[in-house]
């Protein structure tokens, strides 16, 4: 496992540190996978071998066939190509999506305005209203439905396989938060993921498109999954596959440990006055917990925890590039200020979690002492 250099880094929902299996594979593949896999010379065939190996491994890991897998330039790129490609192959243009999809999905939806787009509300735990989504999918002009496997900010798992869709409406699943951590939904037409969220290298997105699905590349370029974003970074794809295989081999063990650690943080955060833990407490991602502290600003929390050696994310507006707070928290009716998202590494220790809990209590107490509430 990783050495202690990442100790205190608790933002793996943004990017997990490179898995040792990925590092090893990447270094070996850099010297072998440099050529263009479309070429017929020896170096090209060598790169092709590595790329096909990466596709086969990733396919097996996510429940697909090797020829259903393509590598994109990032998770966002995979989302855009997957969602817009399903829409482009249909006559309508409307996208029905949950209100808590990742911003990559919402940006793809907003790329082309349509009166047929519809955002489906979620409950206080962040779980989509399945009946409302099924109804919305049956309206005229709907091209595709987008529903994430689990929410990237609050960890709530979405009941994707329980969604009742008409046979002709394709389903796009953003599985970036779930891959390597939970069993995946099986009912999708296209599925996207991002390697650096499971310990693969950055700059590797995965797009899976079912052979039975109608999909047309939405951007300039050839149809087909083999060279999605121009030339594929073959060493990166292979390293991503190696990391995913390694992570999956340890998945249940890791998840059980992280569940217990998250429960410890949940108890600590819940014991702070005026603090609300958000997201489903049971049916959730194993490594992630989110809470909001009343009367405290998110940037002060992030800075205070950083000074004590802990790196966390926040959905509060003051920590974002815009003044708008997290659309996920807003859709759930949760407090948007004072928000912290903690996401554990596969090698986060119990001792580290105890240290975090102590730091959190101290930071919140200090900030509140300064404002007189």
């Amino acid at each position, binding site marked *: 496992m990783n050495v202690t250099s990442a100790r205190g880094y608790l933002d793996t929902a943004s990017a997990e540190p490179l898995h040792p299996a990925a590092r090893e594979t990447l270094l070996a593949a850099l010297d072998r996978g440099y050529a263009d896999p479309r070429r017929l010379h020896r170096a090209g065939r060598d790169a092709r071998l590595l790329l096909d190996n990466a596709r086969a491994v990733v396919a097996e890991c996510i429940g697909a066939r090797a020829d259903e897998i393509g590598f994109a330039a990032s998770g966002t790129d995979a989302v855009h190509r997957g969602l817009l490609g399903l829409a482009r192959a249909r006559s309508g243009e409307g996208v029905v999506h949950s209100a808590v999809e990742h911003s990559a999905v919402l940006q793809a939806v907003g790329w082309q305005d349509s009166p047929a787009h519809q955002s489906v509300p979620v409950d206080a735990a962040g779980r989509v209203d399945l009946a409302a989504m099924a109804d919305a999918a049956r309206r005229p002009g709907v091209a595709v439905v987008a529903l994430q496997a689990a929410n990237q900010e609050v960890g709530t798992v979405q009941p994707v396989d329980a969604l009742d869709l008409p046979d002709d409406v394709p389903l796009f699943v953003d599985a970036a938060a779930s891959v390597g951590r939970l069993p995946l939904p099986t009912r999708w037409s296209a599925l996207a993921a991002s390697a650096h969220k499971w310990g693969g290298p950055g700059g590797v997105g995965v797009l899976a498109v079912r052979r039975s699905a109608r999909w047309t590349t939405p951007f300039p370029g050839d149809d087909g999954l083999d060279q999605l974003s121009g030339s594929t970074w073959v060493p990166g794809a292979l390293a991503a596959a190696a990391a995913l295989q390694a992570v999956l081999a340890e998945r249940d063990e890791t998840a059980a440990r992280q569940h217990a650690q998250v429960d410890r943080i949940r108890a600590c955060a819940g014991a702070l006055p*005026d603090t*609300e833990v958000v997201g489903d407490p049971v049916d959730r991602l194993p490594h992630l917990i989110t809470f909001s502290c*009343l*009367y*405290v*600003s*998110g940037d002060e929390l992030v800075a205070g925890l950083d000074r004590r050696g802990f790196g966390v994310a926040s959905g*509060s*507006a*003051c920590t974002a590039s815009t*003044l*708008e*707070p997290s659309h996920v*928290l*807003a859709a759930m*009716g*949760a*407090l*948007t*200020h*004072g928000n912290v998202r903690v996401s554990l590494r596969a090698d986060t220790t119990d001792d580290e979690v105890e240290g975090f809990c102590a730091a959190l209590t101290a930071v919140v107490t200090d900030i509140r002492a300064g*404002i007189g*509430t």
Partner: protein
Amino acid sequence: MTAEIDCRGRVCPGPIIELAKALPGIAVGDVLAVVADDPAARHDVPAWCRMRGQEYVGEETADDGVPRYVVRRLS
């Protein structure tokens, strides 16, 4: 006459801190309006009311177009 607090130009959690300080100053059953241009207030005033057992009455608009969030003190 509704009591009002002016939180124009304040960002989160400023308007919510002011709301928490001001609400005890009005009688139970009366309403208090928070005028705030911070976009987070639209979500955080109702969330605060839910967490604190107060009633969120709804959103109005002040004369200068800034949102005005109305809260009724229940306890």
